[in-house]
């Protein structure tokens, strides 16, 4: 039951965090430097999320089938595949590598 409490707090915080972005002063929004920082942060966060999802396992770093997914996705992107194909490539590569007994 305690877990419910933390779930609901996490939900409230998630929504409030999103909402706060909509209420920062307009002056900030028209500041090119702030927007530039928001742009670099987006790149940084997506790069970090990619890496975390690919090699992190809790606080450990592991090389498993997910690295195969990363490589397959990169190849698909280089071949200009559409998003869904990229995602399926990643899943297929990970599933296949596991089928072959790795990761």
């Amino acid at each position: 039951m305690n877990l419910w409490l933390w779930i609901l707090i996490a939900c409230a915080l998630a929504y409030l965090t999103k909402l706060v972005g909509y209420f920062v002063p307009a002056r900030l929004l028209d500041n090119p430097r702030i927007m530039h920082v928001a742009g670099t942060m987006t790149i940084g966060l997506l790069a970090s999320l990619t890496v975390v999802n690919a090699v992190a396992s809790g606080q450990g770093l592991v090389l498993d089938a997910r690295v195969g997914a990363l490589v397959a996705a990169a190849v698909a992107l280089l071949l200009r595949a559409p998003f869904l194909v990229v995602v399926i490539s990643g899943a297929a590569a990970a599933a296949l590598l596991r089928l072959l007994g790795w990761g």
Partner: protein
Amino acid sequence: MSGGSTPMKLRESPAFKIALSLSIATGLYGVSFGALSVASGFDFWQTMVLSLLLFSGGSQFAFIGVVAGGGSGVAAMTASALLGLRNGIYGMQINAMLRPGGWKRYVSAHVTIDESTATASGQSDPGEQTRGFWTAGIGIFILWNIFTAVGALAGDAMGDPKQWGLDGAAVAAFLALLWPRLKGRQPWAIAAACALATVLAVPFVPSGVPILVAAVVAGVIGWFSHSRMDEGLEPDLDPYAEKRRHGSGGGK
């Protein structure tokens, strides 16, 4: 939700198509969240509340991941909240782009996530930004929740979601979201620096925090590089060049 455009126009809209394919792709891997959540000991409704109300994939995975790893509810909540901080930045960006007023602001806040923001910020035309944001936001909300339910219900039946490569799908999706932003040397340098910072931070800080370390690194680089930045590093307001629209289809 799309500014009164007719369905015909919607079908011709590049942002709409991108948003639809993103919705399907992202929605589908809601199966992996549902299945992993149940496998981590959450019940069906706890899983659904996370998808319905928290609605931010990274934060949801962080929450169940901490609990699955033996962490406390507080730790799970903290990891989830920290990981959700980027949505505040996304809120700023979307607010700057679309300037939603009244009640729309409260609805758009809920669907302000990686994918809806990336779809909107990849477009230059304000109408396209609006269509992209709402289509991706609402499309993903609906499909993500449907597939979370499917995953939660089917979780036991399908066995290990890893067997299906669903974690690999998440990796691919994040890379696909990052990819179109890597135009030029500076974005690559930022991505590389943040990837490295993440890898270095993982062993030393709790789950979820390495992503924030990367955010700080990216923020510092952005702050100090502004005066000598090259064109094209403002993916947020300065958009996909035409060649990207022509050269590459959906999901960019």
